[in-house]
């Protein structure tokens, strides 16, 4: 051993070297194209939309957002409720303003489907080339909201706040309460309907610039915004915000060209899968998360995306046409 240890050194390096260090990096697992499905049932009408497309390989240039418009043409999307089968059809819609330049997006649509509370809905997307993706949900039961001092809506100057408490359905994971004032304004000789949302708060002004209004956002179940709600979910709208909306309308249209119509409190409930997806895709809502990774969520079996449910329930109070404040 001691005769020529240097030789040992060289032999050791060479032998391990030759054993097989010619591995190459495989950043990508074998790509398996998967169905991407988005469908959200709402009770806002009997028309429901959906999106179906596919995932794509990581390698090479990033296809980017435009790839979303390439629909999965051979996929058949249905939603079943009991013996009723709702067949979605292809359609083209223009991308929203948030998505940047306008592009036509291949989407799916079905008419005549108004989801009913507490009934199960099964989504099936079948593709001859990619197999079948499935998901299911039970549509949300109605929620209820209670405006603590609704009568004060007719005497805007007499109240400081409007606490709105909610009772959510058991399946709701998140909710939002919005307060809008509906009106008619005389423009061009015609009474045109309109609506304006009442904010929750206002950002602190910086310098001479007034702070922006803060409007309600989606809140997780159990998240309270005010102790006055006595343990129930809900929000509190300040009286100044309500009066501000009324003033803004009157200043815009004048007293004689404006008719107030309704004060509408709308409770929108979101079911668990939709809220979980939304929370995950938006980095847990910007909360103080310490996580540095980018997790994902899906309730689509054998696919990606989400099958969710959203439900609106409103409490409408008729306002005097010439409400004084």
């Amino acid at each position, binding site marked *: 051993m001691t005769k020529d240890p240097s030789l040992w*050194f060289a032999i050791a390096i060479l032998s391990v070297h030759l054993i097989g260090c010619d591995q190459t990096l495989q950043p990508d697992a074998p790509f398996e194209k*998967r169905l991407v499905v988005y469908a959200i049932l709402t009770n806002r009408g009997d028309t429901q939309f959906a999106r179906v497309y596919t995932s*794509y390989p*990581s390698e090479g240039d990033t296809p980017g957002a435009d790839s979303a*418009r390439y629909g999965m043409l051979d996929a058949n999307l249905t939603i079943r409720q009991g013996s009723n089968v709702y067949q979605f059809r292809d359609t083209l819609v223009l*991308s929203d303003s948030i998505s940047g330049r306008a592009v036509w997006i291949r989407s799916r649509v079905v008419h005549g489907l108004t989801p009913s509370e507490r009934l199960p809905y099964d989504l099936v997307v079948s593709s001859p080339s990619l197999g079948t993706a499935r998901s299911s949900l039970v549509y949300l039961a109605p929620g209820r909201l209670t405006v603590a001092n609704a009568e004060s809506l007719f005497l805007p100057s007499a109240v400081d706040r409007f606490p709105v408490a909610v009772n959510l359905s058991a399946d709701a994971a998140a909710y939002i309460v*919005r307060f809008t004032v509906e009106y008619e304004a005389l423009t061009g000789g015609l009474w045109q309907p309109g609506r304006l949302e009442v904010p929750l708060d206002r950002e602190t002004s910086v310098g001479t610039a007034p702070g922006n209004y803060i409007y309600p956002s*989606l809140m997780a179940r159990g998240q309270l915004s005010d102790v006055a709600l006595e343990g129930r979910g809900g929000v509190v709208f300040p009286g100044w915000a309500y009066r501000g909306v009324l003033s803004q309308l009157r200043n815009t249209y004048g007293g004689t060209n404006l008719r107030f119509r309704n004060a509408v409190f709308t409770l929108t409930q979101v079911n668990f899968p939709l809220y979980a997806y939304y929370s995950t895709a938006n980095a847990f809502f910007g909360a103080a998360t310490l996580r540095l990774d980018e997790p994902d969520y899906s309730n689509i079996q054998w696919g990606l995306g989400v099958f969710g449910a959203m439900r609106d329930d409103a409490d409408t109070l008729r306002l005097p046409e010439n409400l004084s404040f």
Partner: protein
Amino acid sequence: MRVFPPCHPFPRRKRSGCRWSRTFALVSALCFALALPVRSQETDIRGVVGDSTNGQRLVAATVSVHGTSKGGVTNANGFYVIPKVPAGSYDIVASCVGYERQQIHVIIKGDAALTVNFRLAPRDVEVSEVVIQGNRSSDTSHIATSVYSILPRELQRVPTPGSGDVFRSVTILPGIVSTADVSSKFYVRGGASDQNLILFDGMRIYNPYHAFGIFSVFDNEIIRGVDMYTGAFPAGYWGRLSSVMSISTRNGNASRLSGGANLNFISSRVRLEGPMGQDNSFIVSGQKSIFGQSLGPFLKDPPPVSFYDIYAKGTISSPTGLLSLRGFLSGDDVRSNNLQEADHVWRNQGFAASFSNLIADRLYLDATASFSRSEIRRDPKLSNTVLPASSSISEFGVRSEFTSYTESQNLWYGGFEVTFPQTEYDFSTRGAVEQNVSSIHPEFCLWIRREQRLGRLRADLGVQADLALMFEKAPTFQSLQPRITAVFDIADHWRAKASFGIYTQNNIGITNEDDVISLFEAWIYLPDRLRPEEAHHSVFGLEADISSVVAAKLQSYYKSYRSIALYNREKVFASDPDYVTGTGESYGIESLVRFASPTVDLYLAYTLGWATLTTGAFTYPPRYDRRHSLNLMGVFRPLGNVDLTLRWEFGSGYPFSQNAGRYDRLTFPMIVQNNFYQQTGEPYSTLGPKNGARLPAYHRLDASLTYRFSLESVRGTAGIYIINVYNRKNVFYFDRKTGQIIDMLSFFPSATISLEF
């Protein structure tokens, strides 16, 4: 070499809290009880052993009473005690590897302690003697299974791009791996990098790296030694789950003014040291990067990195004690001209005052008060992918440790430490919401341990009490942590060793578990709802001095993580916790063989290891799980003043998560409007099974050729270093968005020159 936990301050109580008063009184009473001398016709011999040329106190020097079995070993301050020497006439002999023996004749008459100080003269020795004898001395004197005492000479030997690096050097040890050429972070026996306790002269240091972690902030020239515990460390070390790296600095030259300078392609460094009155000394060292000047003319885009570090130490010596003040500052700036690339800024600082002396006949005290702070800031500028963040951790601590020399071979150690780590983490979420997470949690530990020798059996029996845990939330077994090691001398040159210990950790580093490498690491205190992290270490080993030139070690280890903070894989809502308590385990076998002859030193370390983490029902390997790790190093001395060093490293691939594909993910920015069908979405990479694939194997050959010369009173070393001699393309990481593969360091030649006077 005997390893003493670092010296720390005598406690100065800020206020007389009832609990603290009682604890202090208890500790003091215990100390003095242990220190009581036996009054008979016996006396103690004590003193210090130093270097005759520069006054440096020598650690692990052996002092013995010739003709008897009595003797002692010097501690970290060069101090020794040989208790209970009967009256008579003796020759007291001091010896140390690399020094001439010195013998002093004494006559003991009464019972008054006798002070005998030694000044040993250095002698020219073969490097092999230092390597083998030095390590043998360390192995036989340590009652520990997994400790490596590294001398400055060994630190210099490992080829590195700059002027030598303690963190790069320790990665040649078995059980220690690094995940990247450009990161000095290391991982020990399947533990994460935040589980390593780094002590610099007793100061707890958090991010002691330069330039994204390419180099450490410590000058090798000021380092006296490094004790690297890769597991089952003794009582006195606490707050980390995996390992302890205790770096101690040397004192300045107390005999004359001296200094040195080093210049290489990456940095320039100067050092000045000298006496400050009799037996007192100072040492100052500073380093500044010179990337721009050295590489600028040759590279189109020289690295936008600059760094500096400064270290200063003043020491006042007494016949048996030391008082030292020291401090260091370091800073790094990575500022890119590209507005799309984020800038990073690091700052470190540390200050400490230590007092060491005999405070009773047989009671030696080390006390240190220290403050350290580490911070990192990230400015994304116009980057779309990086968010602004800053993090800092500040820690003030007081530590006191005593050694009781009641018997010649059997010693008591004990002490306490109080620290106040304060963490701050400011960051922005992807929703552009600014967040702050901060905490300050005092930590208070007591420990006591006993070194006991019973014939062939030697044992280190200790217990660590984490009082902060005890009072807050932990069950008893987490608060009281046994630390036990036994060494059995099977034969003259064969030793069997076994250790067990329980360890906890409360401050953790945050990194992205899915990143191949993390450049930004923030420290936080464990969230309240989580149990303290806890690991149990079990180690068994066999060591042998096979011949006068060959030594070998074989160890097996099993580390059970009973509680460890892991990502909450079930998190979907903001209210869900980010982290949950998981479990894990790591185990493996390590082997080390060293050969030393006058012309060749060879070093071979091989580790076979496994590591897994489990959260819920899901088990996966952490990204630093390396199955095979092999280090070969050879130092060849063809001529008396020329060294050729080759270091070859091989490691099987680290785990990573493969890309499974992409899809255009809709984020529902206006979810309530339910217009998702009009959204185009953003490309999102889906990942395959977590850490389910492996990077290609890593291997690299480094070489250095150094030439030593003298020019009158100036000694010098000129060297050529080549990193990655055969230009192996080792994968550093790949960009998930672009698919681009980034390699680690390619062929990189460097030259260095050092001068000493």
